[in-house]
């Protein structure tokens, strides 16, 4: 009996979530992961002996429904009481602190404006939040369910009240820059509040359309965008998902790279048969659910010969160039940021929105950013086991680092980028260099190769209007089903998108179990 009900390709968090739901419903499930351990972009990474981190370093809006359904708390996952404030660092040491509804370190006008901003964004986020966990309607399917979802979106928006509804339509596509400029005057505050609208996307403060949807997406859960680090760091989430999936009966095999998704053909058309591993082994299943990004899934694992030409072209044209690099430092002690008693938050190093914009400008032309901007975390403060006693791990998301560097990436370019990032940190923590035991810089290309994600893209597929909702990743594959019977998608390239949410995995499972 070697036929599975479902094979899940990729044990990133979405693959694990999907596997757990399917197993919970009695399916015989096998998860195949190429890497030696599960987790994907959230996997544990020992980048220097004894020093651990993960590429995704904090959790913002992991679905509470998923956590509840899969009883993740029983498997050791919690984010409660571990919330991180956001720290806007200033060169003069007079930092600002955003912690949920509270804001310190800015003038009275900005503080008042923040209250309004926060409340309004909260109302918008509440309105949209049900839809992140729903299958989007087909653009031209015209089924009752499709129309109902469409109708419900419209109804919910309208129910916000006339004033909010009009404002929502006005600001939904605003550049972050405009949204900030019309409300605030403090330069660092504007940069900090823009951050979650920009990070992960090929988007700068002056770019239209994408920032507000990203902010609202990230405010979907009760924490309203507040991040946390679970015990064990982000890989702690993966551990609990793995336990949950296994306890429900799912089998997880690591170091099992899928080379091809096998498609059978007869006069009845195409149908998925199973997978073939890199070692040649073939495993049969009634369906294959791919958590691998859509480009790799269709172009590499399935192969264009089984796809329509127009569909192939849309997959090929998906925008998947990553923009975020990762700096990991093994430190001999806790770094001292001038004016900061404890570096225990998401520290944003961006003096103003122009700094973000200029870093973007460099990268969009294929250059290294001259002055990178970044978000820094100290995972070892959240969980001391992530570094040897007394020592620490610094993890930074560095913007904007082009996936396609002019002339291509090489060691020298990677080192230059690492040094520039450290220089930027040293402006705020002048003695940091003395504490560095080891440092690594992961370019988007490193992420692409190391984690098997096209472009090393944060969301697998750029989170942008043309690739969102019922267009994600593209029509005819936006409801987790694909044009090939028996083949499904469940990764970040599906609605609603990337980040550690579990939502795509959840939604795909609902669709499969319908």
């Amino acid at each position: 009996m070697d036929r599975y009900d479902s094979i899940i390709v990729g044990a990133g968090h979405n693959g694990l979530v999907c596997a757990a739901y399917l197993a919970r419903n009695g399916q015989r499930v096998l998860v195949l992961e190429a890497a030696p351990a599960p987790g994907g972009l959230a996997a544990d990474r020992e980048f220097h002996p004894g020093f651990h981190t993960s590429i995704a370093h904090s959790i913002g809006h992991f679905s509470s429904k998923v956590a509840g359904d899969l009883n993740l708390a029983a498997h050791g996952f919690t984010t409660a009481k571990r919330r991180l404030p956001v720290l806007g660092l200033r060169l003069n040491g007079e930092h600002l602190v955003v912690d949920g509804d509270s804001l310190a370190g800015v003038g009275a006008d900005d503080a008042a404006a923040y209250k309004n901003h926060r409340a309004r964004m909260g109302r918008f986020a509440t309105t949209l939040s049900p839809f992140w966990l729903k299958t989007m309607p087909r653009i031209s399917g015209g089924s009752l369910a499709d129309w109902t979802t469409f109708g419900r979106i419209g109804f919910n928006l309208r129910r916000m009240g006339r004033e909010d509804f009009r404002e929502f339509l006005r600001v939904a596509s605003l550049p972050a820059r405009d949204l900030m400029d019309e409300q605030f005057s403090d330069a660092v505050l504007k940069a900090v509040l823009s951050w979650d609208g920009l990070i992960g996307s090929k988007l700068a403060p002056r770019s239209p359309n994408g920032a507000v949807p990203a902010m609202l997406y990230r405010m979907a859960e009760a924490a309203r965008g507040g991040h946390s680090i679970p015990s064990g760091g982000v890989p702690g989430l993966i551990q609990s998902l793995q336990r949950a999936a296994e306890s429900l009966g799912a089998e997880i095999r690591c170091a099992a790279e899928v080379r091809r998704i096998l498609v059978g053909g007869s006069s009845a058309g195409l149908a998925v048969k199973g997978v073939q591993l890199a070692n040649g082994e073939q495993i049969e299943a009634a369906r294959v659910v791919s958590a691998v990004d859509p480009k790799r899934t269709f172009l590499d694992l399935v192969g264009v010969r089984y796809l329509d030409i127009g569909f192939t072209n849309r997959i090929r044209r998906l925008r998947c160039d990553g923009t975020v690099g990762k700096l990991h430092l093994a430190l001999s002690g806790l770094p001292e940021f001038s004016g900061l008693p404890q570096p225990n938050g998401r520290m944003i190093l961006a003096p103003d929105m122009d700094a973000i914009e200029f870093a973007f400008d460099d990268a969009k032309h294929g250059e290294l950013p001259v002055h990178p901007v970044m978000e820094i975390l100290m995972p070892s403060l959240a969980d001391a086991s992530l570094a040897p006693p007394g020592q620490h791990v610094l993890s930074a998301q560095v913007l904007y680092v082009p996936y396609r560097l002019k002339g291509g990436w090489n060691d020298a370019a990677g080192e230059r980028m690492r040094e520039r990032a450290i220089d930027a940190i040293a402006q705020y923590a002048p003695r940091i260099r003395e504490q560095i035991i080891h440092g690594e810089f992961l370019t988007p290309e490193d992420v692409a190769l190391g984690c098997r994600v096209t472009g090393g893209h944060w969301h697998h597929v750029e989170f942008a209007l043309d690739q969102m909702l019922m267009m994600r990743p593209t029509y005819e594959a936006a409801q987790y089903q694909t044009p090939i019977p028996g083949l499904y998608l469940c990764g970040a390239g599906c609605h609603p998108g990337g980040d550690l949410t579990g939502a795509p995995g959840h939604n795909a499972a609902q669709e499969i179990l319908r």
Partner: protein
Amino acid sequence: MSTPDPYAGERLKLSPFHPRQQALNIRDAWTSWNGYKFAEHYYEAEYEYFCVRNLCATYDISPMQKYQIQGPDAQTLLNRMVTRDVAKVGLNRVAYCVWCTDAGRVIDDGTIFRLAADRFLLTCGSPCTAWLERSAYGFAEVEVKDLSDALAALSLQGPTACAVLKKLGLDGIDAVKPFDIRHFSLHGTALMVSRTGFTGDLGYELWIEPDRALELWDALYAAGAHYGIHPYGETATNMARLEAGFIMPGMEFNEALKTVHFEHDQTPFELNLGWLVDFNKPHFSGRRALLEEKRRGPKYTLTKLDVEGNRPAEGGSRIYGNKRCTKAVGYVTSAMWSPAAKANIALAMIRTEHRQGALWAEIYYEKELRQYSRVAKCTPLRKPFWAPPRARATPPPDY
């Protein structure tokens, strides 16, 4: 020193056969096709048509688009692109094909020549470079090469065509079956001959490198002198193809990549080309959509009509389901008085559900600047308008 031509890039290109065709185009009646200067007619379209039907005549198909698709993945690429099963096309055989969008709407029709297990020639009326590039994406082992300007081609059609080629010295030409390809040598140059054409009659297409085009022309016209060989232009071609029931882009169908409005293009089923769609193939581009179309039935069906009277129901005439012309059920795409069929014929797109009922065409015509209209009864035909046995016979009748 002469001044450079400011319109150089805009001028029409000249076919390799142009010098000879120019000399014969005594009406200077030129149009263009794919950027080439192209004869609408040479002397008089009907005269040329009668040459095609009663003697033989040449038509310059050099401006046609020709692509070589070569490599281990060539067959797979084509089989995914077109609706027919290319695997079934034998070596040195030609197959008429259509290819469709994902939605099953016809992009273009054309012919595929299998020249080797892994080498094909695809010919079509409009440039297909972009679609081929999309079709080839993802195939590692295939090369698509545009041979449009690198291959001269001349169509020789009509009852005496085989006799002329025999006279030209093409030994064994009479054994060449419809849709066969045979390779010859003409004065040491490779000459490829396919028994194909766009007239529904006995005919061949001759393929040669452009530098030797005039040599081929001269030899062919010398051989054909006593067989009535003439050139014919676009208008005569259009007459012959209509009698044969062949479809024409811009008339029977709109190339799907060029339409703006929803369903202003056609499916193979609407064009009565369901026989080209091979659902035994597990996959081809548009298969899912076409399966659904087949299940549902096409909205329109291209229908051959025998129209009462002798006034052609010129393209665009509406077709009605009643004599009072209040119930529109379709429109004429091409029409003519057919000398060969001795009938007033038309191709029309008719709403499928109305094909069985009575059909009436409202025909507008002019007589010495006065405008008239009449309503003519139409009879749908199942059989071709005209299909002479010689078109299929091997060997063809000798002259």
